[in-house]
């Protein structure tokens, strides 16, 4: 019975981990290229969640269609925020960009609250489920997991096989050298910021495919916290590392629950957090650059 539960939780952890990973790639991309820590990260995820809700509830379409819509909204928001403030703050103290991204988060939260009120919303996207014996997995979660993997692969291909992706990598490697070689560094900064925000907003859609309730303007806080942990696990400046970190975090969170549940007197859910952060601390001590180096 315990082994069955452990297998079930680990499997669910992998599925959840891919979505966590996807939800963190944007954060790592922005930090990797611009060295800007987006503390408003969770609010962008929230925008994606509301996009998914609106596409499903008002247009009657599957949340899958909301992924490109959310990505487009995210890219547009990224461009607006970059050219309105981040660009001017890049050479300023780190605290300035930190406060700016915090402000973006608050603006988005209150803006969405104005449009949708503070109700906890959700939708019922039921595709059925598969009983695997040791666990039950809804197809909506399978779709979220596959969507995350596909987007991660597409990002990998874009970075490695396209000229624009390689130009962005060159800016990360050596900004001055890239400028000398004719790369428009300012445009690459704008593109990477908006791409990072686009990925983050799109990940909000995937999260609603995983859990389609609890959508409200202030839902982002918890995801911001988790995204930072996942990003540090995988290597803060590496989007692929973030994806890998997400998988590790999902496994740690879900797998450790079963183990802690065997110890009388312990509240296993509280202990999973303790365990996850303990592992994070150990990784920081033993491998400060994260499990994967920036790439």
């Amino acid at each position, binding site marked *: *019975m315990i082994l069955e*539960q452990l297998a*079930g*939780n680990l499997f*669910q952890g992998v599925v*959840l981990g891919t979505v966590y990973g996807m939800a963190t790639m944007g954060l790592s991309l922005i930090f990797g290229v611009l060295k800007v820590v987006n503390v408003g990260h969770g609010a962008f995820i929230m925008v994606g969640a509301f996009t998914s809700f609106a596409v499903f509830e008002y247009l009657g379409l599957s949340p899958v269609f909301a992924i490109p819509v959310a990505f487009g909204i995210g890219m547009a928001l990224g461009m607006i925020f970059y050219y309105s403030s981040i660009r001017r703050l890049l050479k300023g103290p780190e605290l300035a960009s930190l406060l700016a991204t915090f402000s973006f988060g608050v603006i988005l*939260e*209150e803006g969405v*609250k104005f449009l949708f*009120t*503070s*109700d*906890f*919303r*959700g*939708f*019922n996207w*039921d595709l059925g*489920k598969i*009983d695997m014996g040791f*666990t*039950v997995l*809804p197809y909506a*979660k399978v779709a979220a997991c596959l969507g995350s993997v596909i987007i991660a692969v597409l990002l990998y291909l874009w970075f490695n096989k396209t000229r624009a992706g390689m130009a962005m990598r060159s800016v990360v490697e050596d900004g001055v050298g890239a400028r000398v070689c004719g790369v428009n560094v300012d445009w690459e900064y704008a593109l990477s910021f908006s791409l990072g925000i686009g990925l983050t907003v799109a990940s909000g859609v995937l*999260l609603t495919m*995983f*859990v*389609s*309730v*609890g*959508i*409200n*303007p*202030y*839902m982002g*806080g*918890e*995801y911001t916290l988790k995204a930072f942990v996942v990003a540090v696990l995988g290597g803060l400046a590496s989007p692929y590392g973030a994806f890998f970190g997400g998988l590790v975090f999902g496994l740690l*969170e*879900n797998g450790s*629950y*079963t183990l802690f*549940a065997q110890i009388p007197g312990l*509240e*296993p*859910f*509280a202990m*999973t*957090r303790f365990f996850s952060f303990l592992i994070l601390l150990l990784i920081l001590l033993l491998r400060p650059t994260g499990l994967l180096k920036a790439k």
Partner: protein
Amino acid sequence: MKKTMFLALILSAVFFCAATVLAAELPNKIVIGNPEALSGSQAKAGEQAVGGIKATIKWVNTVHGGVKVGGKKIPLDYKFYDCESKREAVTSLLERLITVDKVNFIMAPYSSSLTLAGAPVAEKYGILYMDHGGASDKIFTQGFRYIVQTIGPGTRYHTGTLDMLKKKDPAAKRLALAYKDDEFARSVMEGTEAHAKKLGYEIVFKRTYPPTVNDLTPLLSDMKASRPDIVLGGGHLADGQLLTQQMADLGIQTKALSILAAVTLPAFQNALKGKADGVMGPSHWEYGVTFSKEKALKAKQTWVGPSQDEFVKLFKEAIGMDLRPEYHAAEAAAAVLSLVLAVEKANSLDSDKVRAAMGDLKFTSFYGGWAIDKTGMQVGHDMIDAQWQNGKLVIVWPEAAATSALQYPKPAFK
């Protein structure tokens, strides 16, 4: 004779002066301060509470004619700020309301933890602190003297639910408790567990989850293995929605599922649609309850406030939306009504005197009964149980207030 007349003259002058001084001391409005949760995790309930307070103040000022103190009818006024559902903001806003805005009384913010955060500040200034949405029993074990509760105590939330289920199916004994690790839910489950044991239930699963959870799969897989007949759990709306959806995802079918502070909100069913059918939850008030002035007077109870329909109309006007009030609005309204009655009874705006007057105050309003014990805890209000049936919320307990029979066992998740 001259001496007597002189004495009478002196006494009249003293009384006249005293009355003049009292009248001069009375403000031209009585201000209720409120650091309410209008953003953050408790915003939804906070907005309802503000609507309920505004609606009741309008009724007091227009229909009741103001609050009668010292022979004068004084209108109520309302000063509120957004505490962002943050405990630290509650304390600083309370300081502002008391020392800068000079409010006469305080309405606590929604939720047990926010109410508890502000209680020491109200205590420091000796100002009456009306708890409309803090249900935890812990609030009343700290020795606070100025806090008065309108919402019922947490430990009694699920007692009616268990009585109902015991009556319906005495053979269903395996009970699982899965709830949020916060002040309110812990308090509720403490009372639930004690009552369940008294009724002979076997607690086969008991676990908490963190307040900001976004995946309950490990806990629910664990719970599924314990094969419960009945699941009682939750804490607030977001986790209540999550608990129900993920129970459906994992195919956990039980005979009954009752969730705290979530089920009776329309947002619960709006999000879950058919999955909400058969899910029930305790509530302090729902539209449709049958408390009325006629019934109260017939039972020789003191009645105060608008009728249920009058309150709904005032609430909609107050918030400027065609939205039906939920129990968060009704309990805040009842808290204002209790304050009005107590001020009139004490004939004073002094918090100590008003608090003393509240001690033996008993009344009925559209919200139901109201009475407190020595600690300020609500003891006069009975809870109801509601259940979603084919997309409609019906009252299933107590039998006297039920609008429909309990659907049992709970239908499978759709």
